[in-house]
């Protein structure tokens, strides 16, 4: 069932000349018909009668919609009151100009929104530049990344104050003279007579005959981080430091030892020998220990080897290569 509403817009409220009929989009229950009735269109008693009739109709329908639907009520209320736009349209020639003005307004709005979006894309919200643009920060963004343009350091005009990080500090000249420095140096040279130790000996060792006893530093056996013993000799260490390319020395040595082991194992397999040769196992030990073992060395070298062995393989050796896999196996052997 569809209901239709007729709203009369009275001429005494100042409505447009032409009869105007507006049919809103159909809703399932309501059909709203607005009719603007001009004095010239309907005459005399007909008009009066129609008006009375229509007004009565409207009132009843409004009452009905109030109960039924608040949406419909509001629509009806809008229809009852005189509309300003209609009043403006009284003059026929101005409608075109108004249209242009409205179109121009929409165009300006569109351009503004477009420009705003474009500007926002270049300045991400929340950045310092954005804060400056919004007037939250007073200055342009500071360039802290550039150490040559540090805006937080400022020397006062009188040159006796300095401003750093917004605080002013008074400056005092340094009074130290060359003579005073020399006096201090003399004093220290008298007070502290020292020779840098160049020979490091384990406590209990005897001093070699050609060594100045002042330059000997005694290192106890349980020193937390220093040891007099080492796996390698000095020349080898120096070469290791200077090596610039290729496989590091110890990795190379271990690799070669493993190669020998593999070859030996393959030889054994050919001969179908299942006996493990104990003398062969010595080949896998590091070949570069040149000097004889000292009694103190045992524990430390074990520690050093443990540290060295617990390391991951170097990038030169892919983890799936046979040498590396075998080396880890070999390392786990006692």
């Amino acid at each position, binding site marked *: 069932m569809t209901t239709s509403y007729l709203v009369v817009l009275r001429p005494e409220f100042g409505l447009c000349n032409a009869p105007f009929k507006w049919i809103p989009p159909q809703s399932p229950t309501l059909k709203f018909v607005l009719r603007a009735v001009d004095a010239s269109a309907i005459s005399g008693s007909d008009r009066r009668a129609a008006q009375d009739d229509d007004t009565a109709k409207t009132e009843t329908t409004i009452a009905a919609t109030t109960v039924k639907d608040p949406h419909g009520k509001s629509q009806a209320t809008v229809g009852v009151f005189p509309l300003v736009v209609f009043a403006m349209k009284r003059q026929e020639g101005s409608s075109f100009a108004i249209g242009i003005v409205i179109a121009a307004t929409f165009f300006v709005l569109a351009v503004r929104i477009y420009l705003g979006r474009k500007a926002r894309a270049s300045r991400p919200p929340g950045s310092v530049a954005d804060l400056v643009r919004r007037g939250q920060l007073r200055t342009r963004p500071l360039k802290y990344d550039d150490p040559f343009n540090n805006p937080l*350091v400022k020397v006062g005009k009188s040159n006796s104050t300095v401003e750093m990080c917004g605080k002013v500090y008074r400056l005092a000249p340094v009074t130290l003279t060359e003579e005073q420095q020399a006096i201090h140096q003399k004093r220290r040279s008298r007070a502290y007579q020292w020779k840098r130790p160049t020979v490091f000996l384990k406590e209990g060792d005897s001093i070699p005959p050609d060594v100045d006893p002042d330059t000997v530093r005694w290192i106890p056996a349980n020193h937390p981080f220093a040891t007099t013993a080492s796996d390698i000799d000095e020349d080898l260490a120096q070469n290791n430091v200077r090596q610039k390319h290729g496989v590091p020395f110890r990795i190379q040595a271990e690799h070669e030892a493993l190669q020998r082991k593999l070859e030996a194992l393959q030889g054994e397999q050919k001969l179908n020998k299942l006996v493990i040769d104990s003398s062969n196992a010595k080949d896998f030990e590091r070949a570069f220990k040149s000097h004889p073992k000292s009694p103190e060395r045992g524990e430390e070298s074990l520690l050093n080897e443990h540290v060295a062995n617990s390391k991951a393989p170097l990038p030169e050796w892919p983890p799936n290569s046979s040498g590396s896999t075998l080396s880890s196996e070999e390392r786990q052997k006692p």
Partner: protein
Amino acid sequence: MLSLRFLPSTNFQFHTPKTPKPPRFPTPKPLAVRSVLQWNRKPELAGETPRVVVITSGKGGVGKTTTTANIGLSLARLGFSVVAIDADVGLRNLDLLLGLENRVNYTVVEVLNGDCRLDQALVRDKRWSNFELLCISKPRSKLPIGFGGKALIWLVDALKSRQEGCPDFVIIDCPAGIDAGFITAITPANEAVLVTTPDITSLRDADRVTGLLECDGIRDIKMIVNRVRTDMIKGEDMMSVLDVQEMLGLALLGVIPEDSEVIRSTNRGYPLVLNKPPTLAGLAFEQAAWRLVEQDSMKAVMVEEEPKKKGFFSFFGG
């Protein structure tokens, strides 16, 4: 907020005016303050490269490692290539301060043993790629002290002759004390930076260490006075920087104010000089690095805080 746009971008160094002829009867004349703050030019490298600088103190906990990290990164920011060596054999911390602890796989001990090459042991900082870290040993390994000092000399030689060129600075973080680690660390150095705090315990150790360095032939020794509190100096509860200088008789490389940001930056593994916006201590480290490059020393020191003068237009942000 400060802005220095109006300041000239020329050399920002103030010099004392030409000294007038000495009068017949010299009267005590107040010394002219010569400001030494530098900020808008590139520092000129003085001396031969690599400059091997050891940062030492004697006493522990005065800020050697913090100074090494901040000066090292400041130098890298100023455009110089820097290799920082953590020579603290027993208790190394420089990697933590720089936030590089997860990237240290090899140390000098491994290089000496032939487990890796030197270039594999150098850890390049990703923030400033001209900064590299080299640790001398792992915390639980022992350094063969027989050639510990020599090893550092070999290292410096190897760095000199490497392909990408000789580094401008080799900065060595020295361990506390005057034990074997100290001897190792000072061996390759040509110059030293002595870090001290304005208290008598630190000063006594600093004096001793300076004496040892001078005996060893290191003549170029400058000091950084760390953890200075201007408010305590004003209340005469702390020795002033000038008092410290009077006691030690060393040229001043820098004065670092006490700053709570130091602890925060240490915890973060992000050196102070990279903070944005910079802190007071960070600026002071930057200035010290600047002087180190130019082999300059401070000519004036900050004494105390003054109330900021407000201009007529300060209300309007002037």
